[in-house]
Every structure is written in C-alpha cells, then in structure tokens.
C-alpha cells in the first residue's frame, strides 16, 4: 500500500511539472472556465422570470445543481479526461505493453497517472456556487448534512469515473471509436439542470441507466433536506456497482488483449 501511495505522489508531481512547462495554458483554461460558467448562468437565468421555477426548483436551488455540475465538470478536466483519454493512445501506439509490464495494477496506473491542475479552479468555482446557492436557498448546514454531501460527491465521482472508464476501456477492441467518451460528455450535460426539469421518461433514464441524477440533483436534495437515507444508500450502492462493473470489464478487456493482440 505504501508503494502505491508513493507512486501516486510521484505521478502527480510529474503531472504538475508538465503543466508548468506550459504556463500560458493555465491562463487560457482560467479564462475558458470563467466564460463557460457565465454562459451557463446566463442560460439558466433564461428559465427564470418573476415567480417562475424550473421543475419546481427555485433559482437558488437550481444554482446548487449548477454548482455541483461545475464541480464534476472540473473533476473531469482535472482527472478523467487526461488519464482515460490516454488509454486509446496507449492502445494505438502499443505503449500499453509497458504499463502491463509494471509490477503495479494497470487500472491504477491508467486511472491516476496524471492530473491536470487546469481544472482545479473550476472545481473551486463550482464549490463556491454550491455554497452561495445553498445559502440563498436557506440551507441550514449541519455536520451530518455536510458529511452526507461529501459522501455523495465521492459516490458521484466514482460513478462518473466508472462510466468513463468503461467506455474508454472499449478502445481495446475499437481503437477507432475513441470519441465515444464525447457522447458520454454530451449526455452528462443533462446534469446541469434539476432532474424534475425533464419529462418522466428521461428522468428514469438519468436515474437508472445513466445515473446523472446521483451526481447533481440528489446531493442538492440531500442539502435541502429533501432526500433521506434511502437515496444516500442507493447512490452508494450504485457507485459500488458501477465501480465493480468497470473493474470486471477491465479484467475482461485485458484477457482479450493478451489473447488476441499481436
């Protein structure tokens, strides 16, 4: 375990070093995040006039959802895209072999190899938005609700990671479909708005098949005191389920790789 921890520190140390090679990118990223967030808020404001709600959610409550979405989007920029996007490159260029020959778990290596600090401001802004929205919505913070939200964020992150990893792992078979994760990203954009803003059929889809609801809407409900223990358990259960599926799928993909590749 100590070896994994030390490896992780080295991974991220080198990642930050790479970023420092390209300082201008950080500024560009910052500008892009600021523009993107103002655009999202502008778009959200279009749904709100006097006395208007979006699926029964007030402006402040919707801001909480938007904040949570921004956190996960930042997480994708910081962690998922740079790592899982590299899997297809490894497969295409044959450097996956090097990863498989390291005495360390290959999924660990592929999932945590690098980190892009450029997405961190987005996470910060998202958390800020969440805090502000919560305050406006009259949320009373208790230690237990804070802890619950933290657990929900972790569960959401795990769900997001597992979905992304599952799709990225298919590149072992279909090198040419590397942009399948773009489809996932497009669908995840539905997490910008509260689940109730969607028609019932889509709500079902976003809860069970592509559990976007557990990333943004459910944590916001937890903070608002509207969702209780069963929801929390369902979120955790889904996270464990998705992670187990991603793990099993990776082992299966590796078996295919080692028996069919040349």
């Amino acid at each position: 375990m100590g070896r994994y921890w030390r490896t992780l520190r080295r991974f991220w140390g080198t990642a930050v070093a790479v970023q420092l090679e390209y300082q201008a990118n950080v500024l560009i990223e910052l500008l892009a995040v600021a523009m993107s967030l103002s655009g999202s808020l502008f778009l959200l404001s279009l749904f709100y006039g006097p006395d208007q709600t979006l699926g029964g959610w007030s402006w402040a409550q919707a801001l909480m959802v938007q904040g949570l979405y921004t956190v996960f989007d930042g997480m994708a920029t910081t962690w998922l895209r740079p790592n899982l996007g590299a899997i297809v490159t490894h497969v295409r260029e044959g450097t996956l072999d090097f990863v498989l020959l390291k005495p360390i778990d290959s999924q660990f290596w592929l999932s945590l190899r690098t980190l892009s600090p450029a997405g961190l401001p987005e996470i910060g802004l998202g958390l800020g938005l969440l805090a502000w929205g919560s305050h406006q919505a009259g949320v009373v913070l208790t230690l237990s609700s804070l802890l619950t939200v933290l657990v929900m964020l972790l569960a959401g992150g795990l769900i997001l990671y597992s979905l992304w990893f599952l799709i990225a792992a298919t590149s072992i078979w279909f090198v040419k479909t590397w942009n399948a994760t773009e489809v996932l990203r497009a669908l995840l954009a539905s997490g910008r708005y509260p689940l109730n803003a969607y028609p019932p059929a889509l709500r079902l889809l976003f809860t069970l098949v592509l559990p976007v609801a557990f990333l943004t809407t459910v944590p916001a409900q937890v903070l608002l005191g509207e969702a209780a223990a069963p929801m929390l358990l369902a979120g955790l259960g889904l996270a464990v389920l998705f992670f187990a599926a991603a793990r099993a799928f990776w082992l299966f993909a590796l078996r295919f790789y080692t028996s069919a590749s040349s």
Partner: protein
Amino acid sequence: MIQVEGLSKIYRVAEKQPGLAGTLRHFVRRRTRDVTAVQDVSFRIEPGEMVGFLGANGAGKTTTLKMLCGLIHPSAGEVHVAGHRPQRRQAEFLRRITLVMGQKQQLLWDLPPMDSLRVNAAVYGIPDGVAQRRINELADLLELGEELTRPVRKLSLGQRMKAELLAALLHEPEVLFLDEPTLGLDVNAQARVRQFLAQYNRRTGATVLLTSHYMADITALCPRVLLIHQGRLFHDGPLEVLADQLAPEREVRLELESPVEADALAGLGRLEQLEGCDVRLLVPRDQLTAVVAQLLDRFPVRDLDVTDPPIEELIGGLFRQGRV
C-alpha cells in the same frame, strides 16, 4: 533461466471484405480464419546467456518475445521465465524482467527522463537512495549526463534510446527482452548501445534475449542465435555456424584511382561488378583479411568498404535456396 516447451500461438482473425457492405455482411455472419504465428517452439536459455533472436518480419519473433514477457497468452505449450509463468504477470515476476522496444517509448515526452525514472523507482518500490545510486552508475555506463534533466522531446534519437534503456534497467532485472533496441540509430549510437549491453551483461550476469535487424548487433553480442521462420524454430546454436550458412561471403566495394582489368583481380574472390574504377567483389569470410590486405597492397585504392548484406536479405536468401 528461460525454458520454453512446445510453445504455439494461433490467432483467430476475422475475415472481412472492405467497405460498408463487407462490414454488414461480417456483422451478420462472422467468418474467421486461424493464423499460426508461432508453432511448437522449444528452447532453454541459461542464466547470463546473451542470445540473438533472428527472423524475417512476421516470422513470429515479437509474438514469442511477448509470450515470454506475459503480454500474450500462449495457445499451447509451457513457458517458464525466472521460475515464473509469465502469463500470470505476478509482481515478483515483473520485477525480474524488462522489455525494451526500439520503436516505442515509455518515457514521458514533455518531461526530462529523470522524472520518469523517479516514477519507475516508486512503481518498483526502489528506495530513493538506491535508485539515485543506480541512476548514477547506469548513466555513467551509458554516457548520459545533463540529458537526464532535459525534456525528452529535445533529445536526439540516440540519447532517447539510452535513456529508455536506463529506465528499463533501473530495477536491475535479471532477464532483458530487447526488441530492436538499435532501430533507427546512427552507427555511433548503435555501437554505444551494443557496448553498453555487453558491459551490463558482464557486470550483472543478466540474461539477454535480443532481436535486431542489424547483423552487427548480433555478431557483437550473441554467441548463440535462435532463428525463427514462419513460426518455427530453424536454428539454435552458435552464430558462426549460422553466419557461415547465411553469409559465407562478404561484399567488398572498391573505388580505385585508375581502371583495372578483370584479370588483375583473379584469385581475389568472386567478381560481381567491374565498371572502370568501381569494383564489387564477394569474398569468403575466412579470406577477408588476406584479400583486403592484398587489394590495398596491389592497387591504388581510393575507397574501400566491406559490407554485410542486411539480415533480411540473408535469411530470405537462405530460404530461397531451400537450405533449411
């Protein structure tokens, strides 16, 4: 150190017509075909041996090498490397081997090799002090200095390959699998890499299995060679035996000050070409030194070049002649 018994690898390849219609037809009715990449190969390699692994492109060299590392599962047969079955890829096994691929790199492109080395040290669980000592030693042998702190993208191909070797050897593996480690390097860099591998083998007693397109790599390093053709092992033994069989003659190219007659070259090997001042001779290997000395003695030589035909050509020639 390496035991291979009846090793075979059969791929199932999908047969698909090109184009959209072909894709659809393939989807409805899959047609597959079995391709044998490696067939019934057996050999043993003792600790400390340096063995050359020869074969034309597609002969099954890389497939065999990957089976020895555990990257590909054999269809049949037994493989033992350093007392392990490679396909299980246990951590203890992986710590004892390494794979270097000439055309692929593990070093991070944007960072100095040093950063990648630190990552490897952590992954292999090597304490920092020990890692630093080994880096210094290996860098010394490889004649690498400040290159280790320059981004990889700014290194020449030769420097990059040497850094790759360093990264691959940091954990002091006992078994080295090298797939075309000198590919694309200039002659000087090739020689440097070769020299390093010989030194490393002497110092650590590591077992080395090496493939190369350059005959010079094999002649310089490997007293024993394995020759694989169409998936089968055709030769396992000293290089000289194979070399004589493969290339009993070497080519001598001469550029003279003034034209000569063909008669004047009688007894100096087989005359291949004579055009004014340009001469090409095929000289039996064992007479080479004597012939070259005589040539220099008797003629006004402006330029003299002795070449080994490329290994592909030799092996191709061998099989065309039906000698194996």
